[in-house]
């Protein structure tokens, strides 16, 4: 079980801020593929992962990073703070 969080327009497209997911995905890319296969709203959110960022346990990571031991995955657009 893994906590998956969505922010900004990713959250809006998927329609929820977070969910717990049962997955055996080895990498972030594998998890994204599983989500896309679920429903259109996920496919819409993950249509272009080059415009997305991912954090694993609250640290920025790459989409090919392994998920072993990770408890919290977050997907969001490029940040616009400051």
């Amino acid at each position: 079980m893994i906590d998956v969080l969505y922010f900004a327009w990713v959250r809006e497209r998927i329609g929820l801020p977070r969910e717990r997911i049962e997955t055996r995905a080895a990498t972030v890319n594998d998890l994204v593929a599983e989500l896309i296969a679920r429903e259109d709203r996920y496919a819409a959110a993950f249509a272009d992962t080059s415009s997305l960022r991912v954090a694993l346990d609250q640290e920025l990571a790459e989409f090919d990073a392994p998920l072993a031991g990770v408890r919290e995955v977050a997907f969001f657009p490029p940040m616009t703070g400051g």
Partner: protein
Amino acid sequence: MRVAVQAEPFDFGAEAAAFTRDLPGAGAVVTFTGLVRDLSGDLAAMQIEHYPGMTERAIAAIAGEAMTRWSLVDCLVIHRHGDLAPGETIMMVATASAHRGDAFAAAEFLMDYLKSRAPFWKKEITTSGAEWVAAKDADEDALKRW
């Protein structure tokens, strides 16, 4: 070093004055303040979403990096989230050092990293709709100079 992530407004002048008191050895203090700018003339509000937990962690890491890279006596970051009106203060940083070069460089470094590496997302609510603010390539490029 102090990091605050909050929905509440803060008093920039009071924070700047408090930061500047009691800085042994400091000769230079630089502050940066970000304001909600009404570009189109019809901005009703700016909504700032953030990632509780990661935000504080990311800002503390960036501020710690600034303290290590430059000879800073102290540094401060305050960043708001939630609903803000045009003209309101979004965030501020303050840096203090013996010489002005360190304080200026560290403040610019903090701003460049906060822009692109702290998990905040801005949405502009105008009379004609709502739109997420797009990240700028220039902001990502700005990181390369450090």
